[in-house]
């Protein structure tokens, strides 16, 4: 069957079951209740501190077929996922589902656990590196579920993604299970992606290498939701967890795009007091933010909040009074960690608060403008951020589709030519974010406005911006780089791309074995 954006989706997918096709960004309404983990009691004399992971596995007990969840705040410096899966393998467990909010190259050992039957299912929002490559070549028997950050929150809240044990990598913990992300050698800032896991998992285990005095302060995840605390020697490599600083790009083409994107934001008329903004941590996104900042300074504009992954750059804007609040679901650098620890206007928010479509209102709904990237975009403005030009998975939605749906204006910034390939195609290989939620594409050779947004097009033209039809931009790119051949993939479905509301927007098929 074809879904609302014309993607061919099977009605049933082995290992997943009956598919609910994507019907439109806001067409699917919730029809479920919030789930509740089982109620438990802890006596005053009970001790939550456990010597090692093996002991925790036995106490819970972790059994075959369970779902173990993890967060990705340690990014490519994470040591906890590998540690826990090694423990599972050591104890002879089989058929586990890993629910890890993002998978990084450091998680390569998972491949062996899949081959040995320890892990048989993966549920994630983003993956890159060896695991992603192996998934693309058919590592798992059943398809991996690729969600959005908000979609994962929704799935956990509703019980669609039922977590048996949440292993929460904690930069700092006390012996009674209060956790935060701002102390200890592996400080990572916000623990927002672990919030739904902690709230809804049947069992919650904190894994830390820094035990603070009770009561730990500040508290991100409270003792009331944590069953066990395991002290290990090292939770990961701090160098892979945060960057020292995030830097603005020096690439002239990236700067040109950023400058145009900033002018686009100004032309939308939304850049005024109360402006709410989300941008990524990439060099081009920061460059856009730096130009927007100059515009705000020049016109004495005070924004209401900046959202999403927070960088030192946004922290500086908060501290200079350019934004009143930061809402931080993930910190990217040392400045973001320092700030969230000490500034009451720098708020730590969970993935569900950030972007779940099925609660009483998430933060992305309050965004004026979001700047996003793309690996491909089609002439209907559908965006691919999952697969590369070779069909191999190299990313995922993360918060892409969430923020696109929520913001008043969604701007995609991308080089018209990515290496030697045009960014605009007739049909994206994998649809991640539906075109109806994308308003503007900014490239170095022109700006395209979604035909749904006649109002924006008029504003941009009036501002003298180089507005072109998207097919015109496509032709321009093809004139320079030629028309790429369509990629042939196999039939086997290796991943399903779930829209934030739980419907299936696309599937990823296997590349060569």
């Amino acid at each position, binding site marked *: 069957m074809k879904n609302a954006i014309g993607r061919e989706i099977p009605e049933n997918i082995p290992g997943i079951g009956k598919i609910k096709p994507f019907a439109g960004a806001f067409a699917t309404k919730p029809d479920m209740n919030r789930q509740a983990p089982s109620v438990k009691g802890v006596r005053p004399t009970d001790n939550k501190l456990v010597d090692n992971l093996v002991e925790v596995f036995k106490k819970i007990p972790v059994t075959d077929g369970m779902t173990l969840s993890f967060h990705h705040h340690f990014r490519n410096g994470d040591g906890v996922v590998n540690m826990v899966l090694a423990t599972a393998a050591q104890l002879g467990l089989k058929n586990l589902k890993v629910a890890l909010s993002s998978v990084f190259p450091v998680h390569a050992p998972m491949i062996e656990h899949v081959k040995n039957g320890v892990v048989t299912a993966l549920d994630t929002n983003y993956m890159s590196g060896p695991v992603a490559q192996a998934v693309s070549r058919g590592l798992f028997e059943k398809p991996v579920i690729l969600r959005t950050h908000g979609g994962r929150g929704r799935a956990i809240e509703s019980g669609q993604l039922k977590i048996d044990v949440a292993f929460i990598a904690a930069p700092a913990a006390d012996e009674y299970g209060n956790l935060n992300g701002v102390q200890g050698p592996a400080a990572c800032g916000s623990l927002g992606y672990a919030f739904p896991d902690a709230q809804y998992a049947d069992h919650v285990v904190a894994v830390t290498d820094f035990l603070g005095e009770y009561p730990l302060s500040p508290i991100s995840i409270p003792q009331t939701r944590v069953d066990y605390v395991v002290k290990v020697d090292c939770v990961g490599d701090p160098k892979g967890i945060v960057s020292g600083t995030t830097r603005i790009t020096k690439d*002239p*083409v990236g700067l040109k795009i950023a*400058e145009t994107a900033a002018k686009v934001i100004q032309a939308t008329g939304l850049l005024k007091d109360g402006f709410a903004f989300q941008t990524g941590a990439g060099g081009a996104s920061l460059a856009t933010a730096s130009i927007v900042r100059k515009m705000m300074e020049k016109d004495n504009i005070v924004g209401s909040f900046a959202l999403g992954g927070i960088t030192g750059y946004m922290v500086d804007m908060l501290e200079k009074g350019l934004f009143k609040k930061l809402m931080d679901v993930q910190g990217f650098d040392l400045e973001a960690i320092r700030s969230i620890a000490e500034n009451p206007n720098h708020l730590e928010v969970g993935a569900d608060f950030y972007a779940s479509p099925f609660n009483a209102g998430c933060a992305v709904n309050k965004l004026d403008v979001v700047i996003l990237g793309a690996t491909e975009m089609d002439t209907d403005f559908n965006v691919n951020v999952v697969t590369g030009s070779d069909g191999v998975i190299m990313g995922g939605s993360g918060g892409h589709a969430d923020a696109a749906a929520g913001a008043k204006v969604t701007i995609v910034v991308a080089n018209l030519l990515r290496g030697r390939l045009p960014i605009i195609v007739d049909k994206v290989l994998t649809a991640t974010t539906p075109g109806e939620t994308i308003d503007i594409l900014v490239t*170095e050779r022109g700006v395209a406005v979604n035909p749904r947004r006649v109002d924006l097009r008029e504003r941009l033209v009036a501002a003298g911006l180089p507005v072109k039809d998207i097919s015109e931009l496509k032709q321009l790119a093809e004139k*320079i780089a030629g028309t790429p051949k369509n990629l042939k993939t196999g039939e086997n479905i290796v991943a399903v791309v779930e829209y934030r509301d739980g419907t299936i927007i696309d599937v990823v098929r296997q590349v060569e074995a």
Partner: protein
Amino acid sequence: MDLRRSMLFIPGNNPGMLQNGGVFGADSVILDLEDAVAPMEKDAARFLIAHALQTVDYGTSEKVVRINPLDTFAAEDIKAIVPCCPDAILVPKVESAADIHQVVSMIAAVEKPGQTPVKIIALLETPCGIAEAYSIAKADKRVVALSLGAEDYTAGLGAMRTREGNEIFTARTLVINAAAAAGIQSIDTPYTDANDEKGLLADTKLAKSLGFKGKLSINPRQIDTIHNVFNPSMSDIDWAEQVIHAIRKAEAEGSGVASLNGKMVDLPIVNRAERILHLARLLGLIEEVK
């Protein structure tokens, strides 16, 4: 009048930069075979630039190629580049009218029949070149602009380059005067600290106030600042429109003399006003003279 507010250098040995040279909105792109390219890479850069001239869309940017000096690879450069129809050749280290004559004959020898004549922009970057500025400007009708290269020039003087640029004041004014006397454009030396936006702004304002018509640029980030300085301001345009109105009114009344706000409007004033309005029309700042 050709618009040369900004002339952006693009390294000739960088395919990505050559491909993207047209996206920055510079009035001219200078595809560089000289300083940006190591001697071992001259061949490859010549090939890349020749190919770029024939295939890359540089939009409204004028296509200029900086060749190597006459005593090194200029002959090979001209032979490879001129048949690919650049708009102009930027010739470095020009020291005399004879240099220009030599370049003209080399160009003429390889220009294809029917090809739009390739213009010459002379880069003066030695004390001799500055001393001979007027004869260079007048050497041939292909010469459309003189530009100043301050780094080599100050090395030749034995002076230190400074942020303020006092050491190149004489060279600047001589270049401007020679170009104006010959009826061609003068283009200022680049501001070499790409991260110093304030310094660039001050230096460009100084260049404009002295009479330069544009500025060389080493980084795309500099273009907007340069354009903002060289663009006529709305008060410039207002003044120019009043001048033209006054002179037309005087002509209609049969008088050869006009005055504006009590000051006489003579030919140089009219020429300046016309230039401002022409530039404003080219830039789309006004549609037509009121």
